[in-house]
């Protein structure tokens, strides 16, 4: 029974993956990202003795930006598109619960973003190898952390898309991603603020996702392996926050009519 439950989620996830991976816009985005990552070599060549650091920082930032665009583009549209094109009827009229459908969609998008990240990541690691003849373990960690980050943002975008239009949910997800990356600054400002403002900033800091936990760019640039305690707290944070977003999204999706 449990096996069949998860098998159905797998069938929907695989179909979602096939649907999104065949999208020409996704190819264009990955292609463009590859070009930008490669352009890091040029940026590195004009720096004074810091070429590897520039390539690493440039490449990781480019990857994150393109993965964020893919997440916003795919994550916030997939369920809406199913409803709009009425393809949702094909699935939901079968022995499939709304939870299975929603989770299948989520994992399908995760497969797409992970595939995109792995293609870009492989190019990035090759670029580092080409430049310094080293295999950068912190860079590999950073790519994995980036995948976690976009998976969390996918859950956020998917949840928002259950009750807002795709453009709105893309804008909200983007804004929350910006806030999430400013969380360290928000906390620092909160410490120096008057009580009322501190309270508001504290709420923002604790409520919104802290995406800086997934930022390992400094570790990569300075070739430091992240400590084990940081690894497991980040993994627990990712699982907990993503699960919460998925549950909230499921609660909204269960009452939707089509």
């Amino acid at each position, binding site marked *: 029974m449990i096996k069949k439950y998860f098998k159905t989620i797998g069938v929907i996830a695989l179909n979602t993956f096939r*649907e999104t991976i065949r999208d020409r816009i996704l190819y264009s985005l990955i292609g463009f990202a590859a070009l930008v990552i490669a352009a890091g070599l040029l940026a590195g060549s004009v720096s004074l003795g810091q070429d590897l650091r520039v390539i690493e920082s440039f490449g990781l930032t480019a990857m994150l930006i393109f993965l964020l665009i893919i997440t916003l583009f795919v994550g916030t549209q997939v369920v809406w598109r199913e409803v709009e094109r009425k393809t949702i009827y094909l699935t939901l*009229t079968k022995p499939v619960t709304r939870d299975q459908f929603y989770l299948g969609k989520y994992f399908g998008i995760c497969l797409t973003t992970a595939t995109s990240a792995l293609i870009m990541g492989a190019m990035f690691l090759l670029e580092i190898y080409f430049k310094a003849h080293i295999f950068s373990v912190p860079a590999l960690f950073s790519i994995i952390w980036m995948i976690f980050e976009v998976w969390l943002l996918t859950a956020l975008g998917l949840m928002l898309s259950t009750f807002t239009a795709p453009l709105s949910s893309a804008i909200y997800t983007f804004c929350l991603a910006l806030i999430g990356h400013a969380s360290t600054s928000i906390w620092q400002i909160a410490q120096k603020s008057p009580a009322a403002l501190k309270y508001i900033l504290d709420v923002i800091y604790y409520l919104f996702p802290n995406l800086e936990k997934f930022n390992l760019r400094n570790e990569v640039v300075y070739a430091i392996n992240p400590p084990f305690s940081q690894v497991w707290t980040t993994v627990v944070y990712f699982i907990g926050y993503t699960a919460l977003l998925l549950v909230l999204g499921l609660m909204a999706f269960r*009452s939707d009519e089509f």
Partner: protein
Amino acid sequence: MLKIKSLSKTFYQTKGEKNVLKNLSLEVKKGQVFGFLGLNGEGKTTTVKIIAGLLFADKGKITITGDNSREKIGFMSENPHFYDHLKVNETLSYVGELFGIEKEKINIKIPELLKLVGLEKSAETPTKKLSKGMRQRLSFATALINDPELLILDEPLDGLDPLGRLDFKKAILALKKQGKTIFFSTHILADVEEICDEVAILHNGKIIEQGNPKKLLGRSKKTLEEFFVEKVTQND
């Protein structure tokens, strides 16, 4: 096989409320071909969507007998839509997998179903290239992939040419012989009399007439279409 009791559904729109179904009750017995008739916008699709689980009823109950009832239902929606990235055979395979059917069995079943619905030459055609009639045929095939005991078909004749309608009638009668129960909504009455054991006329959210089409018409020389128009205008 299918029992609907006191089903009510209201849609809330900017223009105000619309009571689409008002205490709708009906029963479809095992092995019956049941025609659910009504004008456009009378609530046929709403009823079908509630049975299929796409909409929630405000009130009322739907009972489908049999174990794992959802696994034994075949559903065909009005104006079917498919994933553009899938071909005809891939679409059937996807639906089969949703039912948990083994891949080998699906691969055996697909050519049989495509032959039944007359799409055997279109197995490798992307669904986005199918005409409306071909989409209807594919949708009918997806409804049959799990060898269902109960078939719920929403406007299955819509978009079919005369040949397609004839094929559909033959398929329905063949399925009836196999003991399947078929519930279908339609506003095309020409073929209903021939294939239905029972019909119900839905008007203003209520069943205004129900019974065997031949018995309903009795000794009058009216066609079902004339009978339908008469009943609808009487109840306006």
